[in-house]
């Protein structure tokens, strides 16, 4: 039960830091007041660093936040110095928490956030900009909202486009199939953006392979057991016509592999997405031919770092080109040739990143369709 004790201790500490921060905030508010209201600050020497996200039980967000903590530690602080705002999937709570923290820190805030849904991004950014804080966002943002419309305060937005990486895995698959035969796609929840993009990636690749037929594309809801059943159905419907399987993510691939194993099929070419440790292992064993890793640890760290360094004045966002304000996050293709090396350098031990190299691993400016 020691972890519970530890957790309570941490919460106490966080609360204490929070109270200190609020007291400091009030003090500086009085100081700032002397120069008149609404004056733009050039820099904040010691901003509160906060990450606002869904929850920590989800492995993806756990990785994101571990990156945020690693960044805070790189500044010489304990990782408890990172303020956690947990929205539990509620946009209203995300916004309310940000507003409360802005009030308590008097805008002396470097905020990294996923606003939970796209429409919620505007009120969050406006609240932060109005209070003189600095915010970097990931994933959710409407297409009409841009960092450069907010001067320096809306520092950056990062998202991931899955279409191109999914197209690349599809090409690996289609090559392995010898450029002919039939492929089936097992997708995510039909309305999810990544699910749509990953299927589109396959369709894009198929244009160059006229001898391969897309036999069917069915949603498997990111779920192993559902994928298992859908794949069984495909086997009845198409039998030997299936010569390759394109999966929208790793959890789906696990179900597909087991459905094939039940039929004694061991050498079907399969590709997937996400780069989970287990999938990387399967790539090393050539049970999966490729998966794609999006490096959430780096994403979580760099987003906090961008907001922090803009707040301290280390760089001036408004002087940066647009591709440094809105950009795609990194994607790393994992194939059997490099799976072992990838595992050693990313999964077995977390690499230490240069958190001042903001744009090195990114993938170009966001394109709107």
């Amino acid at each position, binding site marked *: 039960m020691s972890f519970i004790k530890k957790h309570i201790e941490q919460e106490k500490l966080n609360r204490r830091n929070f109270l200190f921060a609020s007291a400091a905030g009030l003090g500086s508010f009085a100081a700032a007041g002397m120069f008149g209201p609404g004056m733009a600050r050039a820099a904040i020497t010691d901003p509160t660093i906060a990450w606002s996200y869904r929850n920590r*039980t*989800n*492995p993806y967000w*756990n990785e994101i936040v571990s990156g945020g903590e690693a960044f805070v530690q790189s500044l010489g602080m304990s990782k408890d110095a990172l303020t956690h705002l947990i929205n539990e999937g509620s946009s209203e709570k995300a916004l309310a928490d940000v507003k409360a923290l802005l009030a308590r820190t008097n805008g002396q805030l470097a905020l990294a956030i996923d606003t939970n849904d796209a429409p919620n991004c505007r009120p969050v950014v406006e609240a932060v900009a109005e209070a003189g804080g600095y915010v970097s966002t990931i994933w959710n943002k409407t297409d009409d909202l841009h960092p450069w419309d907010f001067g320096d305060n809306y520092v950056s937005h990062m998202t991931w486009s899955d279409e191109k990486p999914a197209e690349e895995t599809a090409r690996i698959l289609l090559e392995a199939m010898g450029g002919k035969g039939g492929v089936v796609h097992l997708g995510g929840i*039909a309305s999810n953006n990544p699910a749509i993009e990953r299927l589109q990636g396959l369709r894009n690749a198929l244009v160059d392979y006229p001898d391969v037929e897309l036999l*069917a594309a*069915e*949603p498997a809801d990111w*779920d*192993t*057991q*559902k994928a*298992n*059943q*859908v794949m*069984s*159905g*495909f*086997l*009845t*419907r198409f*039998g030997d016509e299936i010569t390759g399987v394109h999966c929208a993510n790793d959890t789906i691939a*696990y*179900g597909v592999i*087991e459905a094939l*194993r*039940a*039929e*004694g099929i061991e050498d079907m070419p399969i590709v997937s997405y996400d780069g989970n440790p*287990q999938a990387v292992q399967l790539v090393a064993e050539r049970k999966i031919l490729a998966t794609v890793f999006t490096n959430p640890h780096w994403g979580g760290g760099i987003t906090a770092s961008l907001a922090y360094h803009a707040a301290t004045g280390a760089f001036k966002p408004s002087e940066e080109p647009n591709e440094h304000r809105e950009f795609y996050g990194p994607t790393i293709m994992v194939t059997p040739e490099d799976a072992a090396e990838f595992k050693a350098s990313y999964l077995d031990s977390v690499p230490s990143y240069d958190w001042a190299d903001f744009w090195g691993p990114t993938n170009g400016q966001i394109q709107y369709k």
Partner: protein
Amino acid sequence: MNGILKREALVKWAPLIVLLVLILLFTVLEPRFFSVRNLARIAISSTPALMVALGVTFIIIMGSIDLSMEGTVSVTAVVFAFAFLALGGTVLSWAWLALPLAILVGAVVGFINGLVHVKLRIPSFMASLAMGFVGTGFALLLTGGDRIRVEDEVFRGLLTERWLGFPVMVYVAALFLLIGWFIQAKTTLGRNFYAVGGGEELAHASGLNVNRVRILGFTLAGMFYAVGALMAVGRIGIAETATGNNFMFMSITSVVVGGTALWGGIGGVWNTLVGVLIVNVIGNGMVVIGLPGYVQDAVLGLLVIVAVVLSTDRKSISFVK
């Protein structure tokens, strides 16, 4: 008189007729549906669901409801996988002990479930739903969100080893189906389930310890959920918090479609077998004939209504809430 007899016969056989019509329909649309390979695939996907549905059948016969299956399945699957790997990782070593251990864990969860329901006087749907959440949370705590792979060739033989075209797990499920039938038809406990479901006050007035029957019922259900969890791990080779996903909807739909009445006293394990097969035949058949997934859910929903209309004589029941 003749009219009533016909109606009764229809009510009794409706689920089986629905199943046969569905099989005929899918076979006409796609002859490959009725091949041994595909029937084996339907059997594989039915097996874990059948075990869970058998467990909840006893509860529903009592007129209660149990919604804890997702949590119970997850927690037993995860405990089994941890114990199995810790004890040697193959059925041929001491790791076989993990199999009875999993069933014991299922029984304990079910027993607590029953205690909470009976002793704290919380309605069964609320008590079991809460216990289900506790189970899911506990499974998450144990795994930290990770998946545990069970690779033992002997254990996975449940899926990969085939007799007469069907994997071993199908025969194991058939054995547990017979055990379920035996409990229902040949034991006092089984008859007491019907007594409680048919009229709790009457059963109580006749000197039956209703609370004891209820707690035993939930314990028994927990054991069947554990068997379902073992089958689910056998089928996928992975134990995780998500192992229990979808079992609530699947099992309760199956029980109802099979003709077991939600107000208790009517139905049994054979109805549940037919219900599970109907749900899985639809799931498989839809993919086989190439209908999109979202139509599948809609059809399943409609079918629940049709099955309840066909399989119960609602005139004799005042249950319209």
